[in-house]
């Protein structure tokens, strides 16, 4: 048998979810999911459309709060702190648990302002020099510095799709988050831009806990060390990516990843 990891058995998890259910009005989108997010690895959420993987991802930084009908039950903890407790400030939470979205969504501002926005609103930089440093460091980590260093005042929306997405990653990095959530970050990109993002994810691993939702199973296989398979709002299987893709234990997982789903 492969070395199995139980969904909740990670020794030193960054985030833990216990018995989490999410409702949109009366509809149950996530049913009783318990899972640990490891701090040193990339965790991929895969599953067919509408399986709840994006919904679950968005509960991890309370982005679902913006949807009035959404309701979350169960416990989600970030380093042992309940993120849905009244003591947790949602604004700070989203700075600690950053997010990169499906469609590259830079602000229609300059490249510099895009990256500097987060540090500015959280007061992370004292003075222009420190802000410059943060912007440069973030862009470097996002692998974009060499491409944009001479045109930081150009609009972020003037970049190519892949560059825009890396700018969005730089923007998320700039507030020095602990976890980065990525919601299908490459679905709008061409294969080369996708490969660059994947390489970037690989480089960011270890510094940040990364959770990525993807439709592309090959991508999940390439970038992640842990894979969770969601189906109809349930967490069907969670394990080492190598095991999931060579020897899934659940029939539903196998049927999905071998292309028999449906």
């Amino acid at each position, binding site marked *: 048998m492969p070395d199995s990891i139980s969904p909740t058995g990670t020794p030193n998890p960054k985030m833990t979810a216990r018995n989490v259910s999410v409702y949109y009005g009366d509809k149950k989108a996530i049913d009783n999911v318990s899972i640990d997010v490891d701090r040193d690895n990339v965790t991929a959420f895969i599953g067919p459309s509408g399986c709840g993987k994006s919904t679950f991802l968005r509960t991890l930084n309370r982005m679902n709060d913006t949807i009035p009908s959404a309701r979350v039950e169960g416990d989600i903890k970030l380093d042992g702190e309940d993120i849905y407790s009244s003591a947790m400030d949602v604004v700070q939470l989203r700075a600690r648990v950053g997010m990169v979205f499906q469609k590259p969504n830079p602000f229609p501002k300059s490249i510099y302002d895009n990256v500097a926005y987060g540090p500015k609103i959280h007061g992370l930089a004292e003075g222009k020099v420190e802000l410059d440093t943060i912007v440069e460091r973030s862009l470097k980590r996002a692998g974009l510095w060499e491409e944009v260093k001479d045109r930081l005042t150009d609009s972020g929306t003037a970049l190519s799709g892949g560059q825009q997405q890396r700018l969005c990653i730089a923007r998320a990095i700039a507030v020095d988050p602990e976890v980065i959530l990525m919601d299908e970050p490459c679905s709008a990109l061409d294969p080369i831009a996708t490969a660059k993002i994947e390489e970037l994810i690989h480089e960011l691993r270890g510094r940040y806990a990364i959770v990525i939702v993807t439709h592309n199973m090959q991508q999940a*296989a390439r970038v992640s060390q842990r894979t969770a398979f969601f189906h109809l709002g349930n967490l069907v299987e969670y394990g080492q990516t190598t095991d999931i*893709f060579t020897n899934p234990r659940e029939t539903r997982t196998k049927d999905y990843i071998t292309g028999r789903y449906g």
Partner: protein
Amino acid sequence: MNTGMDHTVKAFDDDLSELRGMISEMGGRSELALDQAMRALANHDLELAEKVVVSDKVIDELEAEVEKRIVQVMALRAPMADDLREMVAAMKIAGVVERIGDYAKNIAKRIPLMTDSRSIEAVSLLVSMADIAKEMVHDVLDAFAARDADVAVRVCERDQAVDDFYNSIFRTLVTFMMENPRNIGESAHLLFVAKNIERIGDHATNVAEMVYYAVTGDRLPDRERGENPTDEPVG
């Protein structure tokens, strides 16, 4: 293991069944080659032996074709999980089955070098031994086609019988050679034949392990593997 559900992309299923068909064909041809080689040996039928040697080429070509198709399927369909394991197993099985064909060819090649050896008692033992090995090959390829891990496990268990036969034949031939040194040449050839058949049994076991892996995703536990044959020291 297989849930019976087809792939959403039907062409993938077509590719897979075609590959399975080619592997079955290779297996059938190897079995036939072994059977014919043993009959040629038993009857000292040089014509049949020649036919075995020639027909081995077809198996070699099939193996090359199977390999090519597997590479194509891997590149185009990106198989995952059990499909991926099946591809990898099929690749290795094709190689192993080709080796089995080679052993049959080796046996057939020896026949012209031997005088009529029907009188030697060990030959009938060899035929029985070859029957078991042939059945193992047959069953293990059935297990691959049916994706049946249990059959594969049982095939492994039978390897012991082949090894026992080998040890018995080894002792018989050694005794025979000691009785009459003029028989040494003949007996040595027969000993090599026995060794070839024993190797075929081992290879059938290897295939069974791969089938087990392809079907279950796990390695066959050690205790169920066939023991490595030990050439007992002479004497």
